[in-house]
C-alpha cells in the first residue's frame, strides 16, 4: 500500500517532468532534484521537532560525555542505563535520531524500484548515455557514471566528516558499497543517484563554508564553482551536439541539447539567486530581484494573453520556454554580476554623455542577425549592416541631446534613443516567440515596446542605467547562443561524398540513348495532400484530382515523404536516398549537385530550377544549367541587408517566406517558370516549388487553419492547371511529376508536435505531417510505370529507369523508415509503411485517415 503510494508519487512527478522536458534524462535529473528538495523540507521539519525533543535531554547528553571515559564496559552499560532512568529517557528514543534517515528509505527504495523497472526508458538515450535502461558502458565497456558517482560521494563524505568532526571509515566504505551495488545497474538509477549526491555535496559544502565562517569568500567560491560546473555541462552538451551532428548524423536530438542547455541555464540562474540570497545585505538585492521578476511576469502574461494559454506553462512551445528561460537566466546572471563583479571601467565618454558600454547592445543585435543568417551576408555587408543599425540610435541620441538636452535626464535619453531601438530591433525575435501572424505583429510591437520603455524609465530611477544596459546585452548574448545552437547555422558540413547504390547503377548505365528523350517536370506544390487526406480535412479538391485523372496522370496512393520538411524531403528525392542531410547539405543537393541533375545533364538534358531563393541560400555553387531567381551574388548582399533591415522594422523575420525578399513579383516568377515549360529545346528538366504551403509555425492551430489552406490550395490549383496546360501544349510527351513535399500540418499543434508525448501521437497527426500527394504523367503506358512509388524519394527511380531504359534500377526501393528526427518530431514515426510510434503504432499508413 505504502509502496504503491510512493511509486505513484514518483510516477506523477516523473511524468510531469517528462511532459515538461520531453526527455527522460532530464526528467530523471528533475525527479532527483524534486525528491531532494522534498526530502530536505521533510527532514528540516523532522529535525526541528527532534531538536526540540532532544533539548529536553541536554543534561543527559552532557553526562553521557563522562561515560566516554569509562573503560569498564559493564559499569558503563549500567551507568548509562541509570542515567536514562534518571532523565526518564528511553533507549529507543535514540532511534528517533534516525527518523530523518527513515524518511529517506521509502524514497530510496521507491526510486530504485521505479527507475529500474521503468520500461518506458528502454532505448531512450540521454547525452552520452546510449540507453537509460542499460549500463552506461561509456568507455570500453567500463561504466563511468557509477565511478563518477563514487567520486562525488567520497568528496561529499570528506566534506561531511570535516563538518561533523568525525573521522570515520564509514565515509569511504559506504560509497564503495554503493559502487559495488549500483555499478551494473541501469544508468537511469545512477543518473538519479549521482544528481542526488551532487545536491547533498552542495549542501555539505554549504555547511562547510558556514562552519568555517567564510561568508564573503564562500559566496564567491560557491557561486563560481556552481557557475563553472553548470557551464561546463552546458559546454559539454554543445560540444557533444557538434560531435553528434558530425559523427552520428543526427541521432542526437538538437532540441534536447537546447532543452538541456535551457534547464541547466535555469538551474544555474536559480543557483545564483540562491547564493545571492545568502549574502549579508539581503534587502536591496531581493527588492531588485522581485522588481525584475515582476517585469518578467508582465511580459509572460502578455505573451500568454496573446497566446490564450494563460498561466499554462506547459502549452508554451519549446521555443518560448527556451526564450523564457534564457531571459530569466540573463536576468539572474545580471543581478548576480551586479552584486559580485565590479563593472568594467568603460566609463570613457563616447559622445555627448554616452558611454561606450551603452552602445554595446546596439552593436549586439545586428551582430546577432548577421551570425544567424550567414547566407545573407558577406563581410562587408555584415559590417555595413551593423553600422547601419548602430548609427540610427546614436544619431537619434545626438539629436535628442541637441534639441532636448536640458529637458530630459541623461538616463531617459539613453533609454529612449538607444535602448528603445534595441528592443525595436529585437521585435522579429519577440514576434517569433509570440507566434502570431504577420498582420498582428505591429500591435504586439507597439505594446511590448511601450511596456519596455515605461518599465525601463521607471527602473532607471532605481538602478543605474549601466545595469540595464548590461542586462539587455546579456539577454541578447544568451539568446544569440541559444539561437545559434538551435538553428545549427554554425555547422559547416558539406554534402556527403558517399555515392548510393542507385547512384552507382545510374553512372554505370549506357549514356547513348535514343533521341526521343522526354522532358521531366518536377512540380512541387508545397504541402499538397493526397485525396484521402483532403477528404479527411473536409477539403473538396475532387475537381482538381478529376482534372489530373482525365489527363492520364497515374495516382500513387498513400505516399509519404521520408522527411517532413521541404529542404530535406526534396534533397532526398533528388538524390533518391534516405540519407540524412542538414539544411545546408540539402541546399547544396538542390543547387544542382544531385544524382538526378548529374545523370540528366550527362545524357544531354538541360536542368532548370525555378525556386524560392530559400532553397539555395548560402550554397557554394550552382551546378545546374539555369536557376531563377539568380543565386545571390556578392553584390546582392547589399539588397539582402536592406531586406533584413526592412523586415526588422516590420517586426517580421520569416526566412521561409523569401519571395518578399527578392526584387521581383510572384507574377514575374511564374512567368519565368512558364517560359521554361514552354521551351521546346527538349530534353529539359525543371524543378519548381510553389504553394499551397503548410500551416503557420506558431505552435497552435488557428481556428481558420483549414479554410486558409483551402484558400491557398485554390490558388495553387489554378497555378498547377496552367502549368500542366503550358507543358502539354509544348511538350505533350514529357514526364510530369506533381507532388507535395510533405504534409499540410493542419492537425495537432499545426507544427512539429512540440509538447506531445510519444504515446499521445496518433496516426492522423503523423500522416498529416508525412503524407503527401504524388501523381506522374507518363508519356505512354510502359513497364516502368508499374513501379509502385511508396515514398516521394522513390519517384525518380522509375523516371530514371524509363529514361535510361535500364530495368535493373527498378530493383531499388527506399521503403524503410523515416530515420531522421526533425525539430520536435521524433525519428521512426513511420516504419516500412506502418505508423512507427504512438497510439496507432503498427497500423499501415494506408489505413490512416480513411
Amino acid at each position, binding site marked *: 500500500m505504502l509502496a504503491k503510494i510512493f511509486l505513484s508519487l514518483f510516477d506523477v512527478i516523473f511524468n510531469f517532468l517528462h511532459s515538461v522536458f520531453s526527455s527522460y534524462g532530464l526528467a530523471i535529473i528533475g525527479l532527483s532534484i524534486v525528491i531532494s528538495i522534498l526530502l*530536505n*523540507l521533510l527532514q528540516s521539519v523532522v*529535525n526541528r521537532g527532534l531538536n526540540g525533543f532532544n533539548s529536553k535531554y541536554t543534561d543527559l547528553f552532557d553526562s553521557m560525555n563522562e561515560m566516554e571515559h*569509562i573503560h569498564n564496559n559493564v559499569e558503563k552499560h549500567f551507568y548509562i542505563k541509570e542515567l536514562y532512568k*534518571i532523565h526518564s529517557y528511553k533507549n529507543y528514543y535514540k532511534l528517533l535520531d534516525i527518523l530523518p534517515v527513515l524518511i529517506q528509505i521509502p524514497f530510496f527504495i521507491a526510486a530504485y524500484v521505479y527507475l529500474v523497472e521503468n520500461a518506458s526508458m528502454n532505448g531512450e538515450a540521454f547525452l552520452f548515455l546510449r540507453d537509460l535502461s542499460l549500463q552506461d558502458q561509456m568507455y570500453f565497456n567500463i561504466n563511468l557514471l557509477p565511478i563518477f558517482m563514487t567520486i562525488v560521494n567520497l568528496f561529499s563524505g570528506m566534506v561531511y566528516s570535516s563538518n561533523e568532526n568525525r573521522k570515520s571509515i564509514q565515509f569511504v566504505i*559506504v560509497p564503495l558499497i554503493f559502487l559495488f551495488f549500483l555499478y551494473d545497474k541501469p544508468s537511469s538509477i545512477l543518473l538519479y*543517484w549521482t544528481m542526488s549526491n551532487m545536491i547533498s555535496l552542495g549542501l555539505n559544502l554549504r555547511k562547510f563554508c558556514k562552519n568555517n565562517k567564510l561568508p564573503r569568500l564562500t559566496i564567491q567560491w560557491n557561486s563560481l564553482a556552481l557557475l563553472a560546473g553548470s557551464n561546463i555541462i552546458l559546454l559539454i552538451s554543445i560540444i557533444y551536439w557538434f560531435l553528434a551532428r558530425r559523427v552520428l548524423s543526427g541521432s542526437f536530438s538538437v532540441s534536447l541539447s537546447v532543452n538541456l542547455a535551457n534547464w541547466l541555464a535555469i538551474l544555474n540562474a536559480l543557483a545564483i539567486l540562491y547564493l545571492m540570497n545568502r549574502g549579508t545585505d539581503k534587502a536591496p538585492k531581493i527588492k531588485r530581484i522581485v522588481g525584475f521578476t515582476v517585469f518578467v511576469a508582465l511580459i509572460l502574461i502578455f505573451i500568454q494573453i496573446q497566446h490564450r494559454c494563460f498561466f499554462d506553462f506547459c502549452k508554451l512551445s519549446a521555443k518560448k520556454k527556451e526564450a523564457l528561460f534564457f531571459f530569466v537566466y540573463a536576468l539572474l546572471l545580471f543581478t548576480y554580476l551586479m552584486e559580485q563583479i565590479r563593472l568594467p571601467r568603460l566609463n570613457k565618454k563616447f559622445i555627448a554623455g554616452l558611454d561606450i558600454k551603452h552602445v554595446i547592445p546596439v552593436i549586439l543585435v545586428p551582430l546577432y542577425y548577421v551570425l544567424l543568417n550567414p547566407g545573407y551576408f558577406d563581410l562587408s555587408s555584415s559590417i555595413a549592416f551593423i553600422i547601419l543599425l548602430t548609427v540610427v540610435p546614436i544619431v537619434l541620441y545626438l539629436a535628442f541631446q541637441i534639441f532636448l538636452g536640458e529637458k530630459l535626464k541623461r538616463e531617459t535619453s539613453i533609454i529612449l534613443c538607444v535602448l528603445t531601438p534595441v528592443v525595436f530591433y529585437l521585435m522579429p525575435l519577440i514576434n517569433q516567440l509570440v507566434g502570431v501572424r504577420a498582420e498582428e505583429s505591429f500591435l504586439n510591437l507597439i505594446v511590448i515596446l511601450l511596456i519596455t520603455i515605461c518599465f525601463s524609465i521607471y527602473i532607471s530611477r532605481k538602478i543605474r542605467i549601466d545595469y540595464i544596459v548590461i542586462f539587455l546585452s546579456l539577454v541578447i548574448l544568451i539568446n544569440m547562443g541559444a539561437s545559434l545552437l538551435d538553428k545549427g547555422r554554425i555547422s559547416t558540413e558539406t554534402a556527403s561524398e558517399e555515392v548510393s547504390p542507385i547512384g552507382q547503377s545510374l553512372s554505370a548505365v549506357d549514356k547513348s540513348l535514343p533521341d526521343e528523350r522526354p522532358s521531366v517536370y518536377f512540380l512541387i506544390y508545397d504541402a499538397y495532400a493526397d485525396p484521402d487526406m483532403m477528404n479527411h480535412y473536409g477539403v473538396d479538391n475532387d475537381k482538381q484530382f478529376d482534372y489530373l485523372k482525365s489527363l492520364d496522370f497515374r495516382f500513387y496512393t498513400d505516399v509519404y515523404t521520408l522527411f517532413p520538411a521541404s529542404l530535406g524531403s526534396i534533397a532526398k528525392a533528388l538524390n533518391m536516398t534516405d540519407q540524412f542531410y542538414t539544411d545546408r547539405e540539402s541546399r547544396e543537393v538542390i543547387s544542382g549537385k544531385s544524382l538526378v541533375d548529374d545523370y540528366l545533364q550527362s545524357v544531354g538534358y538541360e536542368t532548370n530550377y525555378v525556386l524560392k531563393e530559400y532553397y539555395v541560400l548560402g550554397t557554394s555553387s550552382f551546378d545546374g544549367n539555369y536557376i531563377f531567381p539568380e543565386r545571390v551574388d556578392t553584390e546582392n548582399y547589399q539588397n539582402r541587408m536592406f531586406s533584413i533591415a526592412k523586415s526588422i522594422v516590420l517586426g517580421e523575420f520569416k526566412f521561409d517566406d523569401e519571395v518578399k525578399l527578392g526584387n521581383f513579383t510572384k507574377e514575374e516568377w511564374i512567368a519565368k517558370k512558364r517560359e521554361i515549360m514552354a521551351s521546346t529545346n527538349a530534353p529539359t528538366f525543371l524543378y519548381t516549388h510553389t504553394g499551397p504551403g503548410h500551416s503557420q509555425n506558431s505552435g497552435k492551430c488557428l481556428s481558420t487553419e483549414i479554410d486558409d489552406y483551402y484558400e491557398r490550395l485554390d490558388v495553387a490549383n489554378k497555378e498547377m492547371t496552367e502549368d500542366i496546360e503550358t507543358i502539354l501544349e509544348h511538350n505533350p510527351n514529357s514526364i510530369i511529376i506533381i507532388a507535395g513535399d510533405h504534409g499540410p500540418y493542419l492537425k495537432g499543434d499545426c507544427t512539429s508536435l512540440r509538447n506531445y508525448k510519444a504515446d499521445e501521437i496518433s496516426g492522423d497527426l503523423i500522416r498529416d505531417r508525412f503524407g503527401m500527394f504524388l501523381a506522374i504523367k507518363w508519356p505512354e503506358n510502359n513497364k516502368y510505370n508499374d513501379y509502385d512509388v511508396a515514398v516521394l524519394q522513390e519517384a525518380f527511380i522509375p523516371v530514371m529507369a524509363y529514361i535510361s531504359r535500364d530495368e535493373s534500377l527498378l530493383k531499388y526501393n527506399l521503403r524503410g523508415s523515416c530515420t531522421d528526427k526533425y525539430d520536435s518530431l521524433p525519428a521512426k514515426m513511420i516504419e516500412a509503411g506502418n505508423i512507427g510510434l504512438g497510439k496507432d503504432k503498427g497500423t499501415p499508413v494506408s489505413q490512416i485517415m480513411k
Partner: protein
Amino acid sequence: MPLITLILLFAFVQDAHAYIDPGTGSILISFLISIVITIIYYLKSIFYRSMGFFSSSKKSNNLDFTDQIVIYNEGNNYWHVFKPLVEALCKAGVHFNYLSSDKDDHCREIDSEYCNFLYLGDINKSIIMLNHIKAKIVVMTTPQLEILKLRKSRYVKHYCHLLHAPVDIHTYKKFAFDYFDSVMCTSQFQVDNLRYLESLRNREPKLLLETGCTYYDDFNISEEFCDDYVLVAPTWGDKSALLKHSKDIMNTLLSADFKVIFRPHPQSYISENDKMRDIENEFENHKNFIFDKEISNQSSLGKSRVMIADFSGIVWDYCFLYQRMPIVIDSDQKMYGYEGYDISTRNSIYEIINEIGKIVDEKDVGSIDEIINTVKTDKSAFSAIREKYLFNFQNAGPVAARQLLELNERI
C-alpha cells in the same frame, strides 16, 4: 507561475538546516548501526543480569531472615568496620544475622547467641543469594546497590549503607548510594554531598544518619613518633599521582638525608609488579630506605613523622588517629565514573588537609624536601579537626547499633 514557484521552493530550502549525509548511504549505515546498538544494548542488559543467574540456579534463594536484621560483609578487610557494631548489638541483646563472603571472617570468632553467622560463598554467589534475600533490614558497606550485579531484593524492607571510612563520597563509584534507604555517615560533608546528589538526580531523600566512623572506636591513639621516617604511601593504578612521581620524590628525600619508608598499596603487587620491582631494585641498597611489604600498615604509620600520600583513606587515619602531618600530591584528574564527577564542590579532604597538612601540586614534587621542613605539627589542631569533621569519635559502634534498632522498630 511554475517558475516563481520553483524559485520560491529553492529559496525556502535554504532555511532547511537538515542535510543529507554523503550519498545518503552513510546515514543508512548510521541507521543500521543505531539499530544494532540498541539491540545490543538490550541483549547486554539481559546478559549481564542473567550472567550469574544460570550458573547457580539450583538453590539461589533460601536466605529467609524475614523480619530480621542482616549484616552483610563482602570481605574480611571490612571486619574492623562491622566489629564495633556487632559488639554493640550483641551487648544490646539484639538477634541479628551476619552474612559474609569471606570464609575467614573474624565474626566467626564472636561467641554470642545473638549473632547468627553465615558464610554465603564467594562474592558472585553471595550476590545472587542476596538479590533474593528475605529480611527486614540489610546493612552493608558494599556500594552501588541496584546498579551493577547487586540488586535490591524485593523481600527486604530497608537497605542501610554503613560508610566505612571518613572519606568524602567523591571517591565512590557512580550511583554508589542512590538505592539505599539510609546511609550511616561518618561526617557532615558526606551528608551534605549525598543530599546534593539526591536533588541532582531527583531521588527520594534518604535517611542520613550521623553515625561516625566505627573502626575508630577500637583504636588507641599513639602520640609518639617511633622514628623520623617519611612514609611514602601511594595508592595503586593510574589515579595515583604519587606513584607516578614516587621515584623522584624518594630520590629527593634520600639525597636530603631523610629516612624513607615506601609502602605501596597491596593491589600494586598485582597490577604494577614491574614498577614495584623497579623501585625495589633502585633503592633497596640505600641505607635510609625501607620497602614495606607488611600486611598491616600500623607499624609504618607509627614509625613515620610525615606521610606523603594520594587522596586516599589512609590520609584520614593518619590525621585522625596518628595525629600526624599528611602531605598529599594533588593532580588534576577528572573523576570519570565517580560520584566526584557530579558533585560541584571539591572533595572536603582539601579543606581538612589545608588545615592540618599540605597539598602539593604534582609540578612541585621536586622541592618536596623543603616542603617537609616547613611543616609544623600542632597537636591541638588534630583534635579540633576531629571534632569538626567526625560524628561520635570513638563511639560510633554503639550509636550505629542504637540507630539500627530505632530503624528496626520504626519499620
